[in-house]
């Protein structure tokens, strides 16, 4: 069939056709008993998780209240001499969460189609809006529900003054702000890609400005202000209308790209493989390697180890956006320490530890890439432990620098004496090793049975696999947190930190991936 072109727009709805055909297929193969077991399992799992989460949140709320009372008068970082408005720390935290939602949503599309939809639907001479609308609407509903539910525990633990109605209203408003962040990401898709860096920056700044305003409004809602909650809704609703009316402007390849990233990340989440999630989110769309350090790399090394180190260094330097997460986490941590008022030391140490746990995996990106091709490392005339040593060198140096800068900022904020900077640099070496250990984490073996213990069956094989990297991070973190708590660094602590970091390095070099 060639030139029998059709002029009138057909009224065929491919989305409905596919859904009906799929349902007919599933109906013939789904038994009532299987469906009942699936629903029962899901409800039971959600109920159990919910009950555990509520118990944990209430216990944490009590602990935080006690820590706040007991810790009054002593803090690691003293609040600034100038007065900051109430809720500044919460606004900073909400802003960071919304920025994260927007940037992750942009990687997922957020308007997207799956592989089959991209091939079979997008080639049809039909309006593409209905092909994208359903999935985007479902995503927005999920984001609202997820953000609302996730906000509740944080709200209960961190805001001890707000009542139940205020907490629920704030959570719902935060969910709406998260929807707005996703819509901002979708709006970027509907615009032609800016050709200049300045154009891209302008779009980004505009998005950040909107999110900053939404953050300020969200934290004010805790006082029970319905008017402020409605104002967030009044921004979100027209944004949604605008985005949905422009969905047909999104190029097909952009819809397919978003669908590919979503599918990849979704499968990784299903398998609980954090490294694969990282790979999905860091995929470079154009697939072209940077040429940084090309001349230096071309000079080669005198020994196999030197050549490998050179290759790892070049790969590290060529990774785009490597420093974005560590730097943003560092700034967020310092901002929260400054803006949170007179926080108890345990809360501040918890924030610093959280910053470390978020920043460390970001610098294992090269190791994460090489970990999926172990065959290449085996071709080298070097033992696996030496290969790992080379792979650790750059993350260790980078994280030593990062932790030293963090400690230097804390020293500037009167958290301790300058020897903390040396302690931080030493801890950074252990963190670098942990980044590589986490990158070489293998997928949990879900077929392994749980081990019986006095506390009941424990899924040791799975837990051991999933905690790889976090264990050594915690090990390297302990002396650092102790030094920060004391406010000075005795010589023995410096030695202990060096010892712990060396242990982390040796664990990475000589432990098997399984």
């Amino acid at each position, binding site marked *: *069939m060639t030139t029998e072109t*059709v002029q009138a727009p057909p009224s065929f709805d491919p989305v409905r056709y*596919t859904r009906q055909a799929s349902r007919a*297929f599933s109906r013939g193969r789904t038994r009532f008993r299987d469906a009942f077991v699936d629903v029962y399992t899901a409800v039971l799992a959600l109920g159990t998780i919910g009950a555990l989460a509520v118990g944990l949140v209430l216990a944490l709320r009590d602990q935080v209240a006690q820590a706040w009372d007991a810790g009054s008068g002593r803090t690691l970082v003293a609040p600034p001499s100038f007065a900051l408005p109430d809720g500044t720390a919460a606004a900073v935290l909400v802003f960071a969460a919304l920025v994260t939602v927007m940037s992750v949503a942009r990687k997922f599309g957020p308007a997207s189609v799956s592989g089959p939809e991209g091939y079979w639907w997008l080639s049809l001479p*039909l309006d593409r809006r209905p092909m994208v609308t359903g999935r985007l609407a479902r995503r927005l509903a999920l984001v609202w529900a997820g953000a609302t539910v996730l906000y509740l525990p944080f709200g209960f633990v961190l805001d001890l003054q707000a009542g139940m109605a205020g907490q629920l209203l704030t959570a719902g408003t935060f969910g709406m702000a998260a929807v707005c962040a996703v819509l901002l990401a979708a709006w970027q898709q509907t615009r032609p890609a800016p050709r200049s860096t300045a154009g891209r920056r302008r779009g980004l700044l505009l998005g950040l400005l909107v999110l900053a305003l939404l953050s300020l409004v969200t934290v004010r809602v805790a006082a029970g202000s319905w008017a402020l909650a409605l104002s967030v809704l009044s921004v979100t609703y027209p944004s949604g209308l605008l985005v949905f009316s422009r969905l047909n402007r999104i190029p*097909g*390849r952009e819809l397919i790209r978003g669908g590919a990233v979503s599918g990849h990340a979704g499968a990784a989440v299903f398998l609980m493989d954090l490294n694969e999630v990282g790979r999905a989110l860091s995929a470079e769309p154009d697939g072209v390697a940077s040429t940084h350090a090309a001349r230096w790399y071309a000079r080669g090394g005198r020994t196999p180890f030197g050549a490998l180190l050179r290759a790892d260094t070049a790969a590290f330097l060529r990774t785009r956006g490597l420093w974005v997460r560590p730097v943003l986490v560092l700034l967020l941590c310092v901002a929260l320490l400054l803006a949170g008022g007179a926080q108890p030391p345990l809360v501040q140490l918890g924030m610093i530890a959280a910053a470390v746990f978020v920043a460390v995996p970001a610098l294992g990106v090269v190791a994460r890439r090489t970990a999926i091709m172990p065959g290449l490392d085996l071709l080298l005339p070097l033992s696996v432990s030496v290969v790992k040593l080379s792979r650790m060198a750059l993350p260790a140096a980078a994280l030593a620098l990062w932790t030293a800068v963090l400690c230097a900022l804390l020293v500037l904020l009167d958290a301790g004496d300058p020897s903390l900077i040396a302690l931080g640099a030493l801890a950074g070496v252990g963190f670098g090793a942990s980044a590589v250990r986490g990158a070489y984490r293998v997928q949990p073996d879900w077929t392994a049975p749980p081990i019986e213990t006095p506390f009941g069956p424990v899924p040791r094989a799975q837990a051991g696999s999933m905690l790889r990297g976090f264990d050594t991070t915690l090990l390297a973190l302990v002396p650092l947190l102790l030094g920060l708590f004391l406010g000075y660094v005795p010589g023995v602590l410096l030695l202990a930190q060096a010892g712990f970091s060396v242990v982390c390095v040796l664990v990475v070099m000589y432990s098997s991936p399984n």
Partner: protein
Amino acid sequence: MTFPGAVLDICNLSVGYGGLPVCGPITARAEAGEILGIVGFNGAGKSTAARTIAGKQQMLDGEVRVHGLPVNEDAIPFRRSVAALFDEDAFFPSLSLREHLQLVARGHSVPDPDAAVDAELEFFALQERADAVPASVSSGQRRRLLLASALIRPSSLLILDEPEQRLDPAMRERVGERLQAYAADGGTVLLVTHDPALLLATAQRCLLIDDDVREIAPERAAAEIAGR
């Protein structure tokens, strides 16, 4: 340089990734009823060029016009007139082969879609597996389904990227005959291939993508492919 009146008009087209071209600039044209072959070594940039001409990938430079209009895969008239087949293996897991073809036929308002689907299933020897889902058929049968989906719908330009992949020799021959019939009906075909027999059986002209891009006779192109 442009070619007024050509179905496909490619002028200094540069294709590649991340701003880096993978081959020299391409200039060519194809009239209605013509089959233009594209050959070259692995990695020469044939598929990238085909994807760019089909609007699936952003061009780095140059111009491509189909029926005098710039390539825009997001425009409905473009999608109505251009059918393309690439090395993709994306199927709805719970739709049968027949339902996949019905989706395309109905989406393109093919008159009497059920009859058209039956005809394609018969041509590509898929009748016996018509109600099976793609995961339960062989990769060659899935390839035939993709070919059928490109041919069941109305179009005036057909872009095929190595259609011979995973097909047995008899089916390759039938595909060649089908392409000739498509061109005889006034359609234009852009055929990227590594199969000298298919190239000789179908193409009237040929582009060789190498260090530079030049037009050569199909016989010479077939000899180049066979001589590798």
